[in-house]
């Protein structure tokens, strides 16, 4: 009975079936802004392909971001409701941490032990967090989750450590020109190097044990990092009643 992992923090929706030790199947779809329309058909297809039904899923793991708000909400709403309907446990796992694990994996053999996953936060900013490798398959955070301009990220990183830092992710690729000015950063950019968020790392990171727990399910929410900005047009209309 496999677990189902879902990550919709970026334009790529990532899904995987398996558990900590075995990966059954994985798929990634370029969903753009259409996660709502594309995610469940992709899950259904992946299950079908492996002669499984959704009722065979024994646990759900959701990538909690940070990333695009709408993408995260579709993935996490889907994960929460699947767990609720199937009465299986739901786990949340940070997207930056999963990305860090993927980046380290693709640099196996290297002595570098610092990794900086970077996710596009739009509006000229990125989400990033510095991690240090811990053993063969874990990372520990060396910084807070940051939401800042890529140039400010460079300044912060140079203050953190003097060794090489492996970096990647859709935010690192979007601002590669800026990040490549640093000699400290080693930017990974081939597709299977973990630059796209991959759900496999969510599966590998979570130790699935207990059964369905409603309060646990209700506690899984997106990691927004940014405060909601009150939509200016709507608010303006409400505050200035004579406008419009």
């Amino acid at each position, binding site marked *: 009975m496999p677990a189902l992992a879902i990550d919709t923090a970026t334009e790529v929706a990532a899904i995987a079936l398996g558990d900590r030790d075995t990966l059954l199947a994985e798929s990634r779809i370029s969903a753009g802004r*259409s996660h*709502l*329309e*594309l*995610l*469940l*058909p992709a899950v*259904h297809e992946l299950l079908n392909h492996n002669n499984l039904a*959704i*009722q065979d899923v024994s646990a759900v793991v959701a990538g909690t971001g940070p990333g695009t*708000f*709408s993408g995260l*909400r*579709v993935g*996490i*709403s*889907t*994960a*929460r*409701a*699947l767990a*609720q*309907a*199937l009465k299986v446990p739901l786990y949340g796992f940070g997207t930056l941490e999963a990305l860090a694990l993927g980046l380290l994996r693709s640099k196996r053999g290297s002595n570098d032990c610092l990794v900086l996953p970077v996710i596009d936060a739009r509006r000229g900013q990125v989400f990033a967090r510095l991690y240090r490798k811990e053993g063969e398959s874990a990372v520990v955070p060396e910084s807070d989750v940051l939401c800042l301009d890529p140039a400010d990220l460079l300044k912060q990183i140079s203050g953190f450590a003097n060794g090489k830092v492996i970096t990647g992710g859709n935010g690192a690729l979007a601002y590669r020109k800026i990040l490549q000015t640093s000699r400290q950063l080693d930017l990974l950019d081939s597709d299977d190097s973990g630059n796209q968020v991959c759900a496999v790392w969510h599966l590998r990171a979570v130790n699935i044990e207990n059964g369905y727990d*409603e309060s646990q*399910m*209700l506690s899984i*929410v*997106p990691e*927004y990092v940014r405060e*909601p*900005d*009150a*939509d200016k047009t*709507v*608010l303006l*209309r*409400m*505050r200035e*009643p*004579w406008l*419009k």
Partner: protein
Amino acid sequence: MILGIETSCDDTCAAVLHGNEILSSVISSQTEFHALYGGVVPEIASRHHLELVNAVIAQAIAKAGVELNSITRIAVTTRPGLIGALLVGVATAKSIAYGLGVELVGVNHMEGHVAANYLPPEPVEPPFVCLIASGGHTSVVFVPQRGEHKLLGQTLDDAAGEALDKGARLLGLGYPGGAELDTLAADGAPGYVTFPVGLDKPGRLDFSFSGVKTALYYYLRDLDPKIFNEHRADIAASYQSAVITALVKKTLAAAASTRCDQICIGGGVSANTELRRLLATECERQGMRLHIPPPTLCTDNAAMIASAARYLPAKPLPDYLSLGATASGGFAA
């Protein structure tokens, strides 16, 4: 057994319907969170829906005294509404349906307001003309039979409830001010100021509330504060009367134009005392039957969404897995 889910604006709702019987209808209002801003903030609404929706569903199931797996059909609002808010409801509904292996119906929120009239305690049958007036929408629609809707009139600018809330705000009342305006107006004389009734022409069934709102703004701007303090209730009553008169006049004209003698209403504004009074008086005078659902079925709720799903065709698995949501979409003319 149908589970309805509604998250199009700022209320998170779930309901269970068994046949035409409402086993439960849970509404979790977010008004207090938005009151701070004086309006619904879409991003805040979306965040709250995600946090609340599963618990609201669990509560609806528990109150109904059933199990989630006795549900045979899921109904969900797919349009119109705040897109981020709709996304949460649709993703949740599809996943619950998929997990349970049951069929799903996507429902137009406006049609849901009409379908609230089919529910107990006093279910009605078409043909009727239905006025739907709330903070988000204002439409008059002719319903010849279940599932068929002919749009006769709609607002060209603000919704009626929005106009009442904004008027309340100009009069220094809180948010959402419609209810407070209603209370204040009860002690006032509606003839104290003559505010314009929007698009008040024979045969014109559309609404416009920007004129009356602007008129109130300029009236108050040039008003002696002493008179304002003395006559606040009169001004409130006059303003409210202009908005309500437009609703009632056009609804009755719509009924006349379709030779229909039954009038139904829906939407939050149907709680308004003046609307109820004037509609009742006019319907009586013109020999029309008036039907007003209980307040909890007039404001946004999920029982009305489940009610619409009783007669709408359902999508089977796996067809609904790709279902999306759209911000726009009311009735077609």
